[in-house]
């Protein structure tokens, strides 16, 4: 993302006016996290209008200022759209000849910058913005997780796990009478379909790593097949990038398999810069504590708030959906919690709700913590 200009709020509020140009899907996700309801955006849009009944329709490029009402985000299609209503513009540049209170949609694209007027420009927002403007921190990883007859073609990045395609073939079960040639043919078809899907969805030159993982030897076979097909088709982009492939082992061909690889220490060196591998590890530590029942791991809002008040939190696990909640109070509360933990020397991990681990945390109320020391009765007090 490009931050074209930034004007801090004047009247000692913590508002800010930002001009932004998103560049890729990561930025869309950042924007999705940054832009809350009641924020305002200024942008240009082609609008077809009819002044009155008799005159012809005209299409003009109009500068609009909208107050955001709702959002619509589809990571698979790189599609982010906001719904908003026009508001008063004090600068006099936007909303000319457009009545106030009219509904418009705003689809974010990569071509034109837009201005965001944010009332609460907090530390979380500014951190996100910094992260997304810093291109070097990017890690683009692709993954194919497969098993017999099923493969998932995904793109992983720091914020998202996007399932690009799922290939599903029902392979015949072998029988004493089954024709093996037929079986092979089907298997071949399956690998070919997976390969084609990879070709369609992966930009091999830009990716840093391509993980192929599966139980058994399917991943290895896929790797061999991919090279074989690429050789046959003289697909240079794949052949030149063959060193980027990592064949890994996991127990299942479903998306959960990727998490398994991410937290497997055997592949850690390869996956250093994948942010979500860190998250997967933290989640795993949390679960270990919970399993040991050593009273160091707790989840739930009440428990975590209490622990934070005691200054006992070593690691805070929080989902981004809390930090971008539509309710301002929840947003504020969560942000305060993050600040508090950081002030007492704790670490904070913001889990992306678009990852498996984030999804898991979301089901656990979205808040969890690992304590510095055991507190056995953290939940009991709260009952009384």
């Amino acid at each position, binding site marked *: 993302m490009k931050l074209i200009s930034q004007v801090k709020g004047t009247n000692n509020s913590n508002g800010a006016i930002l001009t932004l140009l998103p560049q890729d899907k990561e930025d869309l996700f950042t924007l999705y996290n940054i832009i809350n309801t009641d924020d305002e955006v200024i942008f240009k849009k082609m609008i077809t209008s009819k002044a009155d009944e008799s005159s012809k329709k005209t299409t003009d490029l109009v500068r609009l200022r909208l107050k955001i009402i709702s959002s619509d985000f589809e990571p698979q299609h790189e599609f982010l759209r906001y719904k908003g209503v026009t508001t008063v513009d004090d600068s006099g540049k936007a909303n000319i000849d457009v009545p106030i209170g009219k509904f418009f949609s705003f689809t974010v694209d990569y071509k034109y910058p837009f201005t965001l007027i944010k009332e609460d420009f907090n530390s979380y927002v500014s951190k996100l913005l910094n992260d997304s403007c810093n291109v070097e921190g990017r890690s683009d990883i692709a993954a194919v997780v497969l098993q017999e007859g099923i493969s998932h073609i995904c793109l992983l990045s720091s914020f998202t796990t996007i399932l690009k395609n799922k290939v599903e073939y029902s392979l015949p079960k072998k029988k004493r009478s089954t024709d093996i040639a037929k079986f092979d043919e089907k298997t071949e078809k399956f690998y070919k379909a997976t390969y084609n899907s990879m070709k369609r969805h992966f930009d091999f030159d830009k990716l840093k790593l391509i993980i192929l993982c599966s139980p058994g030897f399917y991943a290895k076979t896929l790797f061999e097949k991919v090279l074989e097909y690429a050789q046959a088709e003289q697909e240079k982009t794949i052949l030149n990038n063959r060193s980027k492939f990592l064949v890994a082992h996991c127990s299942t061909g*479903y998306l959960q398999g990727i998490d398994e690889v991410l937290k497997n220490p055997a592949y850690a060196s390869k996956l250093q810069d994948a942010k979500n591998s860190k998250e997967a590890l933290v989640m795993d530590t949390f679960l270990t504590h919970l399993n040991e029942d050593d009273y160091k791991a707790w989840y739930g809002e009440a428990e975590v708030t209490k622990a934070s008040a005691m200054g006992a939190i070593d690691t805070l696990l929080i989902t981004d959906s809390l930090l971008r909640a539509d309710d301002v109070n929840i947003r504020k509360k969560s942000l305060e919690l993050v600040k508090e933990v950081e002030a007492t020397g704790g670490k904070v991990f913001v889990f992306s709700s678009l990852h498996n681990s984030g999804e898991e945390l979301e089901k656990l109320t979205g808040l969890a913590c690992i304590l510095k020391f055991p507190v056995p009765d953290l939940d009991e007090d709260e009952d009384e």
Partner: protein
Amino acid sequence: MPTYYGDDDIDYEEETPEFRDEHEFDDYLNDEEYELISEMFPRAKNELAEYQGWNNLSVKLALFDHNFDYDEAIIDLKRTYKKKKQTEEFEGKISLLEQLARRKVLSTKTSEQSRISNSPKATSLLDSLRKNTSENSGRGSLSGRLSALKESRSRMASKCPSDETSKNKFDNRMTAKKSPSLSSILERRTKSNTSQSLSSKLAALKGNRSKNDRQIPEPKVEKSVNSQPSMVPTKDSHAEPVDPRIAFEKLRSSLCHISSPKSYHHLNSDSEHSEITAIALSQPTNNDQKIKNIKRRYDEIFTVYFPNTNLPAAKKRVIENFNNPSPDDVVLDAQNKAFEAVEDVTKNVATLSVTEDSIKDGRTENEDEKPFDDEPIIRTYKKANIPTKPKNPIDLEKYLSDKKPHLNFVVLGHVDAGKSTLMGRLLYDVGAVDNKLIRKLQRESDVAGKSSFHLAWVMDQTPEERSRGVTVDVCTSDFETEASTFTIIDAPGHRDFVPNAIAGVSQADVAVLSIDCGPDAFESGFNLDGQTKEHALLARSLGVRHIIIAMNKMDTADWYEGRFRDIQWELRNFFQDIGIEEDKLSWVPCSGLSGEGVYKKEYSIGVTWYNGPSLVGSLEVVAQKLGKLNVKDVSNSPFVFSILDAAASGKNKDVTISGRVESGSIQAGETITIYPSEQSVIVESVLCGNDQHPTPIAIKGDFVGLKLRNAHYEDIQGGDLAAVVGFDIPSAQEFTVKLLTFQLDRPLLPGTPFILFRGACEQPARIKKLHSIVDKATMTKILKSKVKHLGSQKAAIVELELTEKKRRIPMLTFSLSKHLGRVVLRKEGRTIAAGLVETIEL
């Protein structure tokens, strides 16, 4: 043209081998040829009105063969076909609906009858009339005709919603009253196209739709036409004789001039849903071949050009797909038999509305250019409600008394415990595999340097399995002894393929647990990460009723009794821990490679400490105990079938599903419904044995293949369930289970993801809610109701949900089926819990 024939006239073949129908031929032509054909064809048709035996395709082919030389083609045609003496009777090919419509028309309009019987002459007469009118009125009449047609159509459309519920009878009559012109056209069609079967009507419905689409931009046309509204009523009467195809053809071409294709697209999508069904319902009999032609043009003009799908080969395949019976034909097929009463017309109408859906389905299938396919959706079909009778019913009681007890058993054990070899040996000794094959395998394995694997290769056939020496997938095989029949399910031992093993265990009544008694081998398989324990747990969790422990590879331990006893002692303790009683266990020392203790081969002289039955002997004992069924068990329970695998075969959309009969019985001719796709199909034959020979009946516990005709292979997966019509199996996304956790590394929390297994069905899922922890022994007493997390060795009531939103798996509660109401959860390659399904949230 009939594109699909019912069962009765399956042997009816057309004389041209390349093109099965006119439509296919039309698609084969290029634009120029098509233009020519469509110009000449009506003329030729008129010429040939007095001849019999020809059909549209043959005429077109003749034109085509004579390089579009019209005169020559006509001469040739006239030579080949005889002059007509009387109208041909196609009575046999009339579908039910048509018969009905015909009867209706006969009763209402007898006067029309005379005119219709010599319809060919009438058409030529009418045609001349048409020529006159078109000459006279020129442009004006065309536009007038358009508006007249439009008006009658829109009248139909507006009327139909209200008529939907009333019977077809009424429908016909009312339309006959209100729009006389259109309905008389309808009637004429019904008469002249009597040979058309239902499926061709579907095609016509499609045509109607495209017609309908074209109607939408019509207001634009009307603007220019509005000047002569007085024409409308008079045109109405003219429109009757005029071939509507021509009117439409012109309408289409005029429209092409008026608006651009893009605007069509817009309008199409909006109107499609609201109007089509109504029209389709009201005009089930209006199947106009020519409209189909228009439809083709429409497709060509307004659909995106896909370089792939427009290749001749691909195109041919697509057309073939469309020519195959639609899902509803299958249903209708099934219904036809039970369908003597004609008052069920409403049902017919209802199914017709469903056909609309299936056409849409077919369409979306072609749009594979979408950037991203969402999670695959299981399509559902209309399920039948009326059971069908078996073709040759047999006496169940007699059959059961003659039948040997049958047993399905799965072979489990740690990797390299010799499961496949043991089974290969068993099959060989019993005589289910002949010497020739064994010798061949021996040669091959010698070449590969794995001579000890030759027996395993009987079951491990894929190159991958052979080269790596591990079993990957389950393999089933049947054999028979004097006392009983058996189905072997050879399961993989490697931990990565435990999912396949679960599928295998779910199909079995009994497990044979193979233990490697070689030095240190037992220990490595028995320790924490070995599969011996996991497999035993799976067997227990999935309701296996008896476990035979095959102490395999005893030859490597020199048949030493001490070794046998040591292992037995350790295993006994373990089985006690997981709650398997001693009377459900039997122990057999054996060697798969040498064959001792497997079937009839004697133990070596040293083995004086064991004198029990051999492996096969033990299996026979168990089969006698568990495999005997009485009539009540079978006849009182509904037929339920768990599918392990589906395979497509042949051209007739034949699908063979193999799996286990869970309860009840099945005979050829009965109708079953497959869940979750809810397609109803007739069982054509029941196949059993290695050679898949037909058998009259399959009963509870049998491992058989069911050959189905007109099934949708792509919507059947391993793990699906099938049941007899009338017994519905709910498909669920969420359900509550009584869960028993095993040794866990990490606790189970709300949201914890895992892989759920229900028989051969495998799906990612997660915990939705932890309800309560209950007492392990009683499973009812609640120990703790506020549960934050679930640790090892606990029993709990838990809500589960599937991760993929659109996925549903067929389920039965444990109270309904002791076998199918069980689930197993695995996470990160380990079995973490097993559960019994309590309730299913629909």
